[in-house]
């Protein structure tokens, strides 16, 4: 049988640096990622406030803004270019350093080894490197605020030729782009190292009795996400390298010939601007699924625990998430319907885009069908989980429209798209992060978060998010172009009151996040101690270990798993839940024999 004196993957650290800074422990690395994502979210949110104030209230002077930028905000009123720079950084920080980092790298690093029954990830040095490389990437990106003439202004998508022509393109297009590309290239390396660990943990480090189908849905979500990330980030990194070379080495990968900017012919020749879009979106579409699939796993996990019954079909959920992974690589051209590609390609991409709605819908219907008739325990975690479903549906439905090339011709680059992705990805994934935080805080920090503040945070965020992003769809259909810093055209001026309303909603929702931040920090030190190691009466392995888990996760005895992950309300059982590690010999009728 299992030798209890077998050495751990790595010994327990003793020095402060090894324990808290350059730690090999996946739990510490997970918390480090969470802290990074939290910092990035605050920065990204602050940028969105600056953007919204400018959009809603035009020439409003924001006190102190001139301190952030040498030339971007004379008299504290941002210039048009500065708006675009803030917008670019908002998108880049949020998509990469919040939505990819928190649900996947933070929670995944902390909980995947525990949920699989492993002592740690198999390559702890790579894991440590993955966090620190990501951290350096964040520092490089933020440094672009203070370098040269500011950060790049080309949007988080950095389309060529604007991104590749250098300083001729405007402030931040020289050094700013190089720093952006360097940051993102480093980020890709960090995530690839992380994906390596996640995949090998899931496949090779499961404890006795833990078959793949016995893994909780969160573990499946992280596993599938890391597979997506492997191919996606491995394509983005070469793209950023080619972009950097166009800047610093005089190459012409993306810059076409005979471009005249500011009366100067640029010294490039023959580049393919469309090539950047292909490379970027081949990464970019799987990226949005990387942002959302962990949230799907987290939400499923939390709802099951609070419903006290499993989902209608565990297998179909897993297969649907798997289908999303496969299909996500086939749809990227739907971001390029109006790029000038052969219109037949629009058909070729529109079809799988509609097909990908099938597994997404199946997942939503399984959630809704499972919730129907259940007595869901209402707490902050389950509320945010429900809101995830709401946001995913609301945001997803607008995707049906955008998937039709004919409609997309009108809606591309309008606020309709902005509303779509903010709801379906931004807000939904954020709510998934919040749900995960409220749910797992007792295990990660050994304290409960304040429920009252959690519910206040929830209702303010839920109402606020809808107030912000629902009007975006109206704006888009009315023709409001995105990435504009002011609305001076005749058809846009009547929409300004809508923007004012949205700005007020955004600031209100921002205040709600500060309540969450206070709750997080206060609970960390003064929160109620949970009554036991399993305050939510969950069944998966994280609830079978101490709070917080010891260095090698399970102490002396590695767990043995006897059950499927969600044995709730099983007839004949002594309690309404059977933990995976419980040898109690009662199986639900549909637990496979």
């Amino acid at each position, binding site marked *: 049988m*299992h030798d209890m004196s*077998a*050495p751990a993957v790595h010994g327990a650290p003793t020095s402060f640096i090894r324990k808290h800074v350059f730690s090999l422990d996946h739990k510490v690395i997970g918390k480090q990622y969470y802290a990074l994502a939290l910092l990035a979210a605050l920065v990204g949110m602050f940028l969105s406030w600056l953007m919204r104030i400018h959009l809603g209230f035009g020439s409003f002077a924001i006190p102190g803004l001139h301190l952030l930028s040498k030339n971007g905000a004379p008299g504290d009123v941002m210039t048009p270019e500065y708006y675009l720079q803030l917008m670019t950084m908002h998108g880049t920080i949020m998509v990469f350093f919040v939505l990819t980092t928190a649900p996947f790298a933070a929670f995944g690093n902390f909980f995947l080894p525990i949920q699989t029954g492993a002592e740690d990830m198999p390559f702890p040095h790579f894991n440590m490197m993955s966090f620190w490389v990501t951290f350096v990437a964040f520092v490089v990106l933020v440094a672009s605020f203070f370098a040269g003439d500011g950060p790049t202004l080309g949007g988080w998508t950095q389309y060529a030729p604007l991104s590749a022509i250098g300083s001729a393109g405007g402030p931040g297009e020289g050094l700013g782009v190089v720093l952006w590309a360097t940051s993102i290239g480093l980020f890709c390396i960090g995530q690839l190292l992380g994906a390596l660990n996640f995949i*090998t943990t899931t496949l090779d480090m499961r404890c006795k009795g833990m078959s793949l189908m016995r893994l909780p849905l969160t573990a499946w979500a992280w596993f599938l996400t890391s597979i997506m990330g492997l191919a996606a980030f491995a394509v983005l990194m*070469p793209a950023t390298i080619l972009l950097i070379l166009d800047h610093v*080495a005089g190459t012409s990968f993306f810059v076409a010939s005979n471009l005249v900017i500011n009366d100067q012919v640029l010294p490039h020749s023959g580049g393919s601007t469309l090539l950047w879009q292909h490379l970027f979106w081949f990464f970019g579409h799987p990226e949005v699924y990387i942002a959302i699939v962990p949230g799907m796993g987290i939400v499923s996990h939390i709802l099951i625990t609070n419903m006290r019954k499993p989902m209608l079909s565990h297998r179909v959920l897993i297969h649907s998430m798997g289908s999303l992974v496969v299909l996500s690589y086939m749809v990227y051209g739907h971001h390029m319907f109006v790029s000038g590609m052969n219109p037949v390609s629009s058909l070729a991409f529109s079809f799988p885009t509609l097909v990908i709605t099938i597994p997404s819908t199946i997942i939503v219907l399984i959630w809704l069908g499972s919730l129907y008739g259940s007595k869901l325990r209402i707490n902050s975690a389950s509320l945010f989980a429900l809101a995830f479903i709401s946001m995913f549906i609301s945001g997803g439905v607008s995707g049906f429209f955008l998937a039709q090339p004919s409609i997309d011709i009108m809606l591309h680059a309008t606020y309709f798209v902005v509303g779509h992705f903010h709801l379906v990805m931004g807000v939904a994934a954020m709510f998934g992060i919040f749900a995960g935080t409220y749910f797992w805080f007792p295990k990660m920090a050994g304290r409960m978060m304040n429920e009252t503040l959690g519910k206040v945070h929830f209702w303010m965020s839920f109402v606020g998010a809808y107030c912000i992003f629902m009007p975006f769809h109206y704006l888009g259909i009315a023709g409001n172009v995105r990435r504009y810093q002011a609305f001076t055209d005749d058809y846009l001026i009547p929409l300004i009151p809508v923007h004012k309303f949205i700005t007020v909603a955004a600031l209100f929702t921002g205040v709600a996040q500060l309540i969450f931040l206070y709750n997080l920090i206060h609970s960390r030190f003064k929160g109620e101690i949970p009554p036991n190691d399993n305050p939510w009466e969950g069944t998966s392995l994280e609830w079978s270990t101490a709070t917080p888990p010891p260095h090698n996760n399970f102490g002396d005895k590695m767990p043995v798993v*006897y059950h499927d992950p969600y044995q709730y309300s099983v007839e004949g059982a002594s309690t309404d839940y059977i933990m995976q590690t419980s040898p109690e010999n009662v199986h639900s009728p549909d637990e496979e024999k």
Partner: protein
Amino acid sequence: MATTVHEPPKIDLDRLPSQGSGNGGWRNLVPADGGLRRVKDSSPPPASTGIWVGLAAITMSFAAFTSALIVRQGAAADWKHFTLPPVLYLNTLVIIASSITLELARRRIATFMGGVKDKDHDQANPAQWLYITLFLGLLFVAGQTFAWMQLRSQGFGLATNVSYSFFYVLTVAHALHVSGGLGGLVRVIWKLNRSVLRRSTLDATSRYWHFMGVLWLYLLLLLWMKL
């Protein structure tokens, strides 16, 4: 002539029943009703899975570079074809030879680690073929550097023409990955000399190195066809 017989390295076959995490070696699942689940008896060592994951990522990166080359070549009429520097073909032979020597090394070491006396071959220095592989690898990188310097001296730099840009990008990217492989080989030698080399580490490092050879053959074909 005196020969030094080294102690065989500590045998560290992966997944012995008494090993740490993973379910290797576990035999019986204990539900009282005897319902055995369809679970594996053991998992492959993580290094084995890990190297395939890493190779998949590297493949995707070079696939991205390849598609960039193909699209870019079709995008404009400014592609200037050129003849590849002949030293590349010599380097190809060097890297193929290094794969052969690495396989020799791997099999000798595996036999050695198993404690089996290999009568036909010298047991005194199981790392000998590893050192030769390392030398050939360094020779390959040196040869690639020579090719780059040769082109530069003829006036063909990174930005001279997009065909040269891709040549440099692909060969430099490959050489960087080969250098990583050299680091892996050094690590294997270091561990072997301290008798702490795991079979899975050796196998994973070899797999990576062979992949670098296959990748080079692919790149050479691509460059020869397209450039």
